[in-house]
């Protein structure tokens, strides 16, 4: 039956978070390889970040215990008092910039190739913010997965490299708390970068009138 045709226009439209999470997760799963490439970009950036910063923390901790004289770190000899050299900071910043550009590019591609899908969703009653929400959730998942894996790989790499310098002493003087803090912030940065990279294209796509979004041929 044609329902409530006389009852006027209402406003209630919803997308529960659980549904949004399910849809975005499913969307990532279906585009697994493409998602993996984007995630790999985040992974590399974060792995590098963790390797440098956590490595510096480890060597600082060991220097505190053993004194600086007998220790040569793998990265650089020109370390300042904080344990991270200017060159290392520069490398980390560069890798993060490359990471953001890579993510923004992947997200731009991912959003553009799905203009029709976005238009269709809006035809079915999706609000602009649902579209943005779905894309941000997707990129957030990718960011988190990439950052977690990157942090783990970075940590393993830096532990192996420091193992060469310090031997098993490394484990007795391991700065666990400081390394965990580094890992936490690295994951956070990875997620934020991914969400930031997706926000612009997703917002632009969501603002398009459905007719225009569906007209776009990619």
């Amino acid at each position, binding site marked *: 039956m044609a329902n409530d045709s006389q009852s006027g*226009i*209402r406003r209630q*439209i919803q997308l529960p978070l659980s549904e949004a999470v399910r849809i975005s997760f499913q969307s990532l799963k279906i585009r697994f390889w493409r998602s993996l490439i984007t995630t790999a970009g985040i992974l590399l950036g974060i792995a590098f970040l963790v390797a440098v910063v956590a490595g510096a923390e480890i060597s600082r901790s060991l220097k505190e215990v053993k004194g600086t004289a007998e220790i040569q770190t793998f990265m650089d000899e020109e370390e300042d008092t904080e344990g991270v050299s200017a060159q290392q900071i520069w490398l980390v910043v560069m890798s993060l910039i490359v990471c953001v550009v890579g993510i923004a590019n992947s997200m731009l591609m991912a959003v553009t190739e799905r203009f029709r899908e976005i238009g269709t969703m809006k*035809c079915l009653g999706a609000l602009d913010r649902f579209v943005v929400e779905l894309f941000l959730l997707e990129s957030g998942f990718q960011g988190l997965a990439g950052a977690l894996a990157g942090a783990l790989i970075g940590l393993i790499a830096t532990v192996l490299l420091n193992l060469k310098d310090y031997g098993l002493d490394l484990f007795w003087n391991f700065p666990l708390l400081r390394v965990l803090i580094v890992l936490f912030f690295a994951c956070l940065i990875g997620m934020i970068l991914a969400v930031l990279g997706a926000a612009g294209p997703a917002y632009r796509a969501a603002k398009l*009138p459905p007719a225009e979004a569906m007209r776009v041929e990619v």
Partner: protein
Amino acid sequence: MASDIVIKTEGVVKEYRMGNNILQALKGIDLEIGRGEYISIMGPSGSGKSTIFNMIGALDRPTRGTILIDGQDMAKLDTFEVAWLRCNKIGYIFQSFNLITVMTALENVTLPMIFAGLSEKDRNKKGTELLERVGLGGRIDHKPDELSGGQMQRVAIARAFANDPSIILADEPTANLDLVTGREIIGLLKVLNEQQNVTVISATHDLKMLDVSDRVVYIRDGLVERIRNRDEIEIEIGTVGGH
């Protein structure tokens, strides 16, 4: 009777800016469409029929003129109201089906029901019923790439009926289908139109649509050229056939 008019357009103009030129796709469309009518909007490519479809369906805004749906001026609706309208009052069927490729048939059909706030149990039940009604009861878990063109359009029809809309807008629903499948889709739309008293508006240049239409609106160069009732259409078809 005013209450039986479900859609009314008054002087609808749509202009597109193409570089320095302004292209007028619609030059002042006046239409009245009654509840439960089956209307075909016919016209050659570029005549403006898809544009009028987009205007009536709240998919785009006119440059000038008013569109009233159930007496409500669309220009005065805010974003939430337009979304509600698209979700609950209008069902869309497209030439290229526009199914969400990553979702199964059932998920495609139930997506508008999520926006309308139905529980998972209710929407799965209703979605399954709708898919059974369009003859796809055995394929609810199939993804669009596992379905034929006709089957995809059936899913799109089931999706269009998801929230019991009062208007179905179909933009060239048979253009990507073969003759037999196209005829089946038209028949299905007609049955649903009669069973549910839903207004069906179809932009088309498929002559098969004429058989089932209550009225045919001919659009040419952004203007309504003529409107023909069913009896007049039959005479015209007879004349064409006689030549």
